[in-house]
């Protein structure tokens, strides 16, 4: 299948979603059907592309002779696209139930679908220019979703989000220009700049800046503040975008930048590497310790996302192939786990009418399935074997140890510390929910009940996925290895 096919999964939801903003749907049902079909079609196309597309480049547009807008399918693209294309329909099903009573649904669904396309665009982009374009578009497409409740708080959060992301893009822009100038912008594993002739200081500073720039979406400290603020968004958005699509796009962009544009050899062992690694390590600890302090359920999860994203960035900054494998592994695993955790939080918010952690005493009795899923998520996120979180941690650890440098080892230690924090802030919830203390049981309103089927099914599916990925990681691991080796 030739690579023009890549355009379909990218532009079908992008265009379709944006146009659908102008459709006036007679009923909820019809809207549901429309977007359901659109999303499923996109997923199908994406998977066809993943499975069938060859690795030739399709040039959509030429800015200049060397500056093109082009798409290409390679291993990394397969992984990221596959991840998004799997999680999007799941989230859509969840959102059907969750968003039922929300306002501004037109906007929500239009941009929700559009951002699907943009995410796939990031996955499929063949060079820095294209990825930068879609990176910017992603900010714009997800902005309305963040502001969806349209409360002043949400608007503040949205503005914060857009300013942070765009500043990140502005930094990343420098990197973009640099790779354009040095002809390094096509993504090839191993990068182009290994034997860069020009001034090394420039190379390194550009790398550090642009890594930070792309890192903004991956919420690297000190540019992380937008993510917790964005927790005001409706749960499907928080779950999908701020646990998977947007933030993982940031991490993915960092991977592209490091391994596919600059190349590990160009940067490894330099102060730039140490700088980004230190930031990542700090973020790991910072994020989880912050989320210890949060009493707001979703914000707690958001901070835990901050920390977990930096696991990925830390692995990226180790700059060995096995580290790349590990980072992809954690990228995928964390997506599944965190989206499930957010789903559970959303269900609690929606059906349990609770949004603070200390109100959850004894809620497990009323919403058993939800909290069962949440428990699985906690175990996985903490990294208790044989849940999947353990596997990815294990491989990050091996990669870190294998360098035998003090800084990665320190990072590994930080990772374990933050894992302990993770245990604390996750199991606090779990224990509260399942084992309320005699003194502490709150009077529950009769309206509290188990979440609806449309919410439960995605959660259960994801929980199952967690276990399966934990018990049969070998195949996925080989997949990733094969993906990053070409």
């Amino acid at each position, binding site marked *: 299948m030739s690579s023009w096919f890549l355009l379909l999964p990218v532009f079908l939801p992008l265009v379709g979603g944006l146009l659908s903003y102008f459709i006036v749907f007679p009923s909820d049902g019809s809207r549901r059907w429309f977007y359901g079909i659109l999303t499923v079609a996109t997923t199908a196309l994406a998977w066809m592309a993943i499975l069938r597309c060859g690795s030739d480049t399709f040039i959509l547009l030429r800015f200049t002779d060397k500056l093109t807008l082009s798409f290409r399918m390679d291993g990394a693209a397969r992984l990221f696209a596959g991840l998004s294309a799997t999680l999007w329909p799941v989230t859509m099903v969840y959102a059907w139930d969750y968003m039922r009573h929300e306002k501004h649904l037109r906007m929500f669904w239009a941009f929700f679908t559009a951002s699907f396309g943009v995410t796939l665009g990031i996955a499929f982009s063949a060079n820095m220019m294209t990825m930068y374009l879609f990176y910017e578009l992603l900010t*714009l497409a997800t*902005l309305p979703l963040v502001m969806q409740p349209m409360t002043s708080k949400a608007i503040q959060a949205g503005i914060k989000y857009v300013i942070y992301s765009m500043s990140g893009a*502005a930094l990343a822009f420098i990197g973009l220009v640099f790779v354009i100038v040095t002809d390094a912008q096509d993504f090839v594993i191993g990068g182009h700049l290994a034997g860069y002739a020009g001034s090394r200081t420039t190379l390194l500073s550009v790398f550090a800046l642009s890594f930070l720039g792309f890192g903004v979406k991956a919420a690297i400290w000190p540019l992380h503040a937008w993510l917790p603020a964005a927790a005001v968004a409706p749960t499907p958005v928080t779950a999908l975008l701020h646990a998977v699509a947007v933030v993982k796009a940031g991490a993915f962009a960092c991977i592209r930048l490091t391994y596919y544009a600059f190349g590990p050899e160009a940067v490894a062992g330099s102060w730039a590497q140490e700088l980004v690694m230190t930031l990542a390590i700090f973020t790991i600890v910072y994020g989880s310790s912050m989320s210890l302090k949060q009493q707001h359920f979703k914000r707690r999860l958001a901070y835990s996302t901050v920390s977990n994203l930096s696991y990925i960035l830390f692995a990226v900054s180790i700059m060995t192939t096995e580290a790349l494998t590990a980072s992809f592994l954690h990228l995928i695993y964390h997506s599944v786990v965190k989206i499930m955790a957010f789903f559970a939080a959303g269900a609690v918010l929606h059906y349990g009418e609770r949004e603070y952690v200390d109100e959850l005493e004894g809620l497990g009795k009323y919403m058993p399935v939800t909290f069962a899923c949440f428990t699985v998520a906690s175990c996985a996120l903490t990294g208790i074997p044989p849940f999947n979180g353990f596997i990815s941690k294990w491989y990050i650890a091996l990669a870190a140890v294998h360098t035998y440098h003090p800084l990665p080892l320190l990072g590994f230690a930080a990772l374990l510390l933050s894992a302990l924090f993770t245990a604390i802030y996750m199991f606090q919830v779990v224990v509260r929910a399942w084992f309320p203390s005699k003194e502490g049981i709150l009077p529950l309103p009769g309206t509290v009940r188990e979440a609806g089927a449309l919410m439960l099914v995605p959660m259960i599916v994801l929980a199952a996925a967690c276990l399966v990925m934990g018990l049969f990681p070998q195949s996925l691991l080989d997949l990733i290895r094969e993906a990053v080796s070409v």
Partner: protein
Amino acid sequence: MSFVQNFPFFSVILSLLCAVTSFFLDARWAKRLTLFLLCTSIGLQGSVLSFCYRNHMSYEYLMGHFAAPWGNEIALGILEPLFALLFATVMLCCVLGGIKRMERDVFPGKQSYYWIMVDLAHVSLLALCYTNDIFTGYVFIEICTIASCALLSIRENGRALIAAVRYMVFALIGSGLFLIGVIFTYSITGQLLFPQLYETIASLWEAGTYRFSMTIAIGLMVVGLAIKSGMFPFHFWMPDTYGRATPASSGILSGVISKGYIFLLIKIIYRVVGIEIFAASGVQTLLLLFGIAGMVAGSVSAIFAKRLTTMVAFSSVAQIGYIYMGLGMGTQAALIAVFFQIFSHALTKPMLFLSASQLANVSGGRQDFRSLCGAGHRHPVAGFTFTVGALSMVGIPLFAGFIPKLYFATSAFGLGWKTWPVLLALAVSTVLNVMYFLYTTILIWLPREEGARNHNRVMPQVETIVPAALLAGFNLMVGIHSSALTALFTQGIDLFCQ
């Protein structure tokens, strides 16, 4: 000597004629005449451009009977008609988009004068593009000043008047300095035509005589034009001027007129002084620094602006800053970037002014941001065009604003110490642009119940929509299909600097 080569001359003369005849016409006919003139001149410039492009030639055209070095002549390659075309098109769009509003702002009795002034502005722009004679340049600068000041002050509004006076004062200081610069140059070289000036200056510089006074002269000319086009430290007149005029005028002033001065400046730098001497004179570095300062300062003051149009006006300070930064970088790539910046800004800023005025209209004529909440829903097209403009200003790919940003940055590498200031300035100014442009965009798209309730949705009039939409279209075209323009510019530049 093909017939097409007369077109530049014709267009100048034609618009002069129109200006004169409009005296004896009433507003309606004057309007028609002007529109006709603009359309024709677009046609003329277009044909000249295509002619020059096809034959890849540039030529001098004698005005009057005296040959060089005494006579007066116009010279054109590819760039001159290209920019003339741009200016004419943008003017047409501005005028079309602003008519309704203009007719509300200006006394019916005075409207014919408005059209005269438009004609004058147009002719002076054409002259600035085409002239090959520095003193003619000065004369048309003055005419341009008068015309634009009139365009500004014709509005019956005290603040517009004061803004006009302020503008006038600064403009006159600018042109005065420019004139002195011209006189110095003349008294040193004894020449007025660009090519002769170029040779003489080069030989003088070789000989090492008059270097100091030459530097002074260059500095005076540059500063004069810089003041008139609103470079950073001299931008105080700008916000009120652009922010208070009737939208058409603001569009013309911000989008086109300042660009005319800048184009003349570029001509002087590359065809009178010569880029090497310009760089050696040290004025270049100053331009770079002031440009960067302007990029930042303009955006910062835009962030604190209270009114929408004031904000847009301040943002043009920043955009002009880009241009001067590019001139300060002084490489050919940077020059291309500058041309792109001129293009994108000339296409974007009028659009922004037009849609801003539309948005203000549907918000009860108020310009403060609270009333503007949700204006986009009340006037979708204006909202859309404003969004396009904003995104282009921020520099999102696929929009025109991205291309100059990209070219500036690419040409920044390999400039020695200049690299990092330029890159960081670009980054910072992007962030600042986000802070006010995207902020405003978000604001105008807030759902209705968030914004001011009392204004109900008005049906936008087609003649205000079309030009803005047209400009938006051009904008996207430049953004997406920039390679053609790049080719045009590169060819134009080697004709231009020979």
